[in-house]
C-alpha cells in the first residue's frame, strides 16, 4: 500500500510533462502550428536514424572537447588567482578591485574582443570557455579559503606545519566543498559558453552549430534533437559531478556524523 502510494506520488510529477508532450503532439496533428515551428517527437526520434544524427554526435564530441580544454584552462587559472587572493592580503588589495571590476562585464560582451584577438576558430572558443569557467572557480576558492574556521588554522599553528603542509592538509580540505561548488559552476558556465560561442561564431563543428544549421534549414527535428542533447548533457554533467563531490567529500560527511 505504502509502495503504491509512493509510486502514485512520483507519478504525479510526470503528469505535467506528459500533458505537455500530448499538447505538443496535438498541436501538430491538429495543425495549430506549422511544421517549421514544431515537429512531432516521433520525427525527432526519427532524426536519430538520419545521416545528420552523425553530425549531432560529432558536434557533441567537439563541444565536450572545447568544454574540457576551456575548463581546465579557466578553472586552474581561477583556482590559482583565488588562492592567491584569499591567502595574501596584499594580493587581495592589489588584484581584488580589478578582479571585481572586470567581473562586472557580462560574459558574452567579451565575444567580440576575444574573437578579434584569438580568431573565430578553436582558440577563440576555448579562450571564451576559459573566461566563463574562470570566475566561478576563483569565487569558489576565495569563499572557501576565507571561510576556513580559525580553530582549524590554529591547529596548523600548534602542529607547526609549514606553509605547504598547511595548504595541503588544512586549508584546501577545509575549503574543498566551496572549491568543488566553484568547479561545478565552472563546468556549467563553460558548457553554456561553449554552445553560445559555437552558435554565435557559426563556424566549425559543434552542438551550437547543429542548432544554427538546423534553424537556418528549418530542420526542426535537428534543432530539437540538439536541444535534447544540450539539456541531457547539462543534466549529466551535474549528476556526475554531484556523485563525484559526494565521493570526494565523504570523509567530511562521516566526520560531521561523528561530531554529532
Amino acid at each position: 500500500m505504502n509502495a503504491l502510494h509512493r509510486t502514485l506520488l512520483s507519478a504525479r510529477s510526470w503528469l505535467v510533462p506528459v500533458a505537455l508532450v500530448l499538447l505538443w503532439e496535438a498541436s501538430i496533428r491538429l495543425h495549430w502550428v506549422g511544421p517549421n515551428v514544431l515537429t512531432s517527437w516521433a520525427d525527432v526520434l526519427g532524426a536519430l536514424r538520419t545521416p545528420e544524427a552523425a553530425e549531432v554526435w560529432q558536434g557533441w564530441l567537439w563541444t565536450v572537447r572545447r568544454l574540457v580544454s576551456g575548463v581546465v584552462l579557466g578553472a586552474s587559472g581561477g583556482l590559482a588567482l583565488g588562492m592567491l587572493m584569499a591567502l595574501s592580503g596584499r594580493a587581495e588589495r592589489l588584484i581584488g578591485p580589478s578582479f571585481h571590476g572586470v567581473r562586472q562585464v557580462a560574459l558574452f560582451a567579451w565575444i567580440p574582443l576575444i574573437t578579434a584577438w584569438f580568431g573565430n576558430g578553436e582558440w577563440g572558443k576555448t579562450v571564451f570557455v576559459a573566461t566563463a569557467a574562470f570566475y566561478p572557480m576563483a569565487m569558489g576558492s576565495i569563499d572557501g579559503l576565507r571561510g576556513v574556521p580559525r580553530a582549524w588554522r590554529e591547529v596548523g599553528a600548534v602542529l607547526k606545519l609549514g606553509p605547504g603542509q598547511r595548504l595541503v592538509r588544512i586549508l584546501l580540505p577545509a575549503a574543498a566543498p566551496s572549491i568543488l561548488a566553484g568547479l561545478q559552476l565552472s563546468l556549467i558556465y563553460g558548457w553554456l559558453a561553449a554552445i553560445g560561442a559555437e552558435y554565435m561564431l557559426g563556424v566549425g563543428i559543434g552542438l551550437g552549430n547543429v542548432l544554427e544549421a538546423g534553424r537556418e534549414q528549418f530542420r526542426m527535428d535537428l534543432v530539437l534533437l540538439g536541444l535534447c542533447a544540450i539539456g541531457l548533457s547539462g543534466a549529466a554533467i551535474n549528476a556526475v559531478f554531484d556523485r563525484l563531490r559526494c565521493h570526494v567529500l565523504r570523509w567530511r560527511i562521516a566526520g560531521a556524523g561523528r561530531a554529532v
Partner: protein
Amino acid sequence: MQPAVRSLAADVGAAEALIAAPGGVAQWTSPTRLAWPALSRVLRRLEGLGLPIAVLVLWAIAARQAWLPTQILPPPERVWEVLVDGLAGGDLLHALGVSLMRVLEGCLIGSALGLAFGVLLASSRVSEVLLYPTFKALAQIPTIGWLPLLMLVFGLEDALKLVIIAKSSFIPMAFNAFEGVRAIPDSLTEVGTVLRLNLRQRLLRLVLPGSLPALFTGQRLAISHAWKAMVAVEILVSTDGIGATMLAGRQFFQLDVVMACIVVIGVTGFLIDRAFVFVERRALRWRVAGNVEDRS
C-alpha cells in the same frame, strides 16, 4: 608612543573616555600617530589602483611602440575618446538607453511572472508536486539553448529579445520566491492561522515580509541575468542597442568601439547592482533591527 599613552591614561577623565570610545585603543593615540593609520589606510585603498594603472601604462607603451597593429590593440586614449564622444555625442548613450529600456521591460515582465509562479508553487502542495519537477528540469536548459526554438516562434524581432530577457529573469525570481515563501517559519504561519487572517492579509502581512530577503535576492539576480541576456541576444540578433554597437565595431575591426562598449556594459551592470544593494539595505533595515532585538 607608549609613554604618551600611559601618561594620558593616568588621567581619570581620559581613561573614562577611553572606555567609552567605541573604537577602543585604536583611536587612543597622540595626534602624530593618528595621521599615520589614516594615511596608510588611504595608501592601502590606492593599492588597488596599482594594477589597472600598470596595465594602462603597459597598454599605452605597447600601442605607442606599435608592438601590435593598432587594429588589434588601439591606444587607450583612443578608447577613452570614443567613450567620451559616444557618451557626450549621444551615440553610445542612445544605444545604452535602448538596451536599458529593453532590460527593464523584459525584467519587469519576467520577474512579475516569476514571482507569481514561485508563490503559487510554494503555497500549494499540489502545484508543487505537479509543476516543480518540470520547472526545475526546464530551468536547467540555458537561455542560449532556447534561442533557436524561440527564434523560429518569434522571428528576429524585438519580441524575441523581450522573451529571452523575460525568461532569464523569470527563473531566478521564481526559484527565490518559491524558496523564500517556503522558508517562512511554521510558527509565523500558525500565528496567521490563529489570527484568522484572510488571503490578502496573509499575503501582505505574512508572506511578503517573511520572504522579502529572498525576493530581493531573486530580483537582484533577475535584473543581473536580464542584463547579461540582453548583451547576448543583442550580439546575436543585432539591430540596435549597445550589443549591436559593439558587434558593428567588431565587424569593422574598430576595437576601440568594442572596448568602449565593454566598459559601458561593465559599468552599467555594476551600477545597477549597486543601486539594487542600496535599495535592499534600506528596505530590509527593519529586519536587521528586529534581529538585533531578538538576540538581546
